[in-house]
């Protein structure tokens, strides 16, 4: 919730969100799909400031995760 609120209040569009618990029950992984934007560096720094965020990793364009889950989202 903190993460989505952070993006929303900075008017930074997120077009895909996936969240599931990891093997470790106390932690979840959140995948966000965003457009390449000049402000992305700032957003990453702001994400790291959130108390609930343990780590932030940046991946390249079109990671497999959204392609595969995307099948469940086709009309």
């Amino acid at each position, binding site marked *: 919730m903190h993460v989505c*609120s952070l993006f929303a*209040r900075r008017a930074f569009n997120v077009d895909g969100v996936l969240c599931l618990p990891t093997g470790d029950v106390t932690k979840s992984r959140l995948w966000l799909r965003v457009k390449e934007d000049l402000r992305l560096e700032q957003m990453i*720094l*702001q994400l790291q400031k*959130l*108390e609930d965020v343990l780590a932030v990793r940046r991946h390249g364009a079109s990671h497999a995760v959204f392609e595969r889950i995307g099948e469940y989202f086709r009309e």
Partner: protein
Amino acid sequence: MNYTGAEIIIKLLERHGIRQIAGIPGGANLPMYDALSQSECIRHILARHEQGAGFIAQGQARVTGRPAVFFATSGPGATNAISAVADAKLDSIPIICITGQVPQDMIGTDAFQEIDTYGLSVPITKHNYFARSAKELFEIIPDAFRVAISGRPGPIWIDVPKDVQMALVEFDEWPKNGVADNNFSLDMQSIQDAATIINEAKRPIVYVGGGAIHSEASESVQALIEKLNAPTVMTLMGLGALPSRHPLSLGMLGMHAAPFTNHALEECDALIALGARFDDRATGKVAQFCPDAKIVHVDIDASELNKIKNAKIGIVADLDDAIEALSPLIDSKEADEWNDRIEQLKGEYPMYMPDLVDPTSAYGIIDHVAGMLEGETYITTDVGQHQMRVAQAYPFEYPRQWLTSGGLGTMGFGLPAAIGAALEKPEATVVCFTGDGSILMNIQELITAVEENLNVKIFVCNNNSLGLVHQQQDLFYEKRIFAANYSRAVDFVKIAEGFQMDSFDLGTCVDPMSLIANALAKPGPALINVPINVYHKVFPMVPPGGANKEMLLRDRVTA
């Protein structure tokens, strides 16, 4: 041991050194209040609006540097507290708001006085918590204190459902208190590079922000600038880090800076930013702010580096630690042509404050009050023209003396913040400069000041209008004054009487100097009405969106 959730909250607060809590009870926090009534070391201050309670906590935290707690109930109590917490977020003040919430089995049913407090507090806090069980409180409370004071301070909100407050818990030991994280390692290469830039600079200026106050670094900052003989500017939040009358001080920078200050910044070749965030009020149009300067930026918050202006060297560190490492690598500098140039600029572009000798004028009142105050003093303001004038004219001497709402600029801050300051510093005099518009926003706290018999002296700079709005409309909207003048003038002397507070009126008195002296000398709270002409503007002023050097200057003929 067996304690209820409410008792655990109170006990943990006691263990963390909390001794005075402002707040207002309501249905959802009655168990907490019941437990508080039994505390032998925490006093409660009953505010008259939760926003007032929140600003009281801010006043406490700003003068001590330690976290302050305030209580509110669910629903309207929580929503009323929002402005004070948001204000604390923008100025990085460690306050902890603890609200009651409806019982968990009623959440989501639109119960009486139910609101999504947790959701509302997400964007305006450094961190927030929802206690799902009394056991969780053992982790939440110490963690709240840890987060509030670690790194860049900020406000915390803890929402506690009523059933959690009433639940009984059996346990053996109290948890350890929350302490500040200490996980900063200095990048010595960056420190060395920063020293090189500073040593090579011919025209350095040091830019000091609120971070210098939060990190208690003002002594080391002062030592550094004296070693460098570097002219120094302060942001609104940094005032007091250096005494205003220090020979190297250029005062405040930015939108309402003295003319010579903004000119000096334009000519500097190295800007050493210490605990400042390049806010738009300070920089003006960013592209034209210190255009030729290499920037060395030290801040505890990594996300502030390179956010607005690219720094040649960015150092993430506690300011005191950074200066300790930097100072031995810096060469001492004697006063030289740059310092002469500064004096020249001061002569060419002086700061003009009209009618300083008249104690009933807008600048005069500030100057005379400053002259008459003795001993330990704290100054709070509200927001607007009076705020800018105090920032320009008041001779601050030490850090934490100055309390103002900078980032959010919340009218209604001044009076309750003064109350909070006075609660922590009962031997001091706390002066609140406010406006007629601002004071009405938390006027109800006048009675709180009277009940607590605090040395709070409220100077109402009264032009019967929203002065800064009036000024902007007059200057930038072709004199179309709209909704900026109050059509009826409120009688503040009568209001103060109704609140059982001593009151004085500079408008009707024969001897203003004695009146002010009396008001300051008599112990306890007082309100002093100071009539001001609405057409007297605050100058210089950088037009919104303009570059600092485009500042409008006072015409010596007209006001």
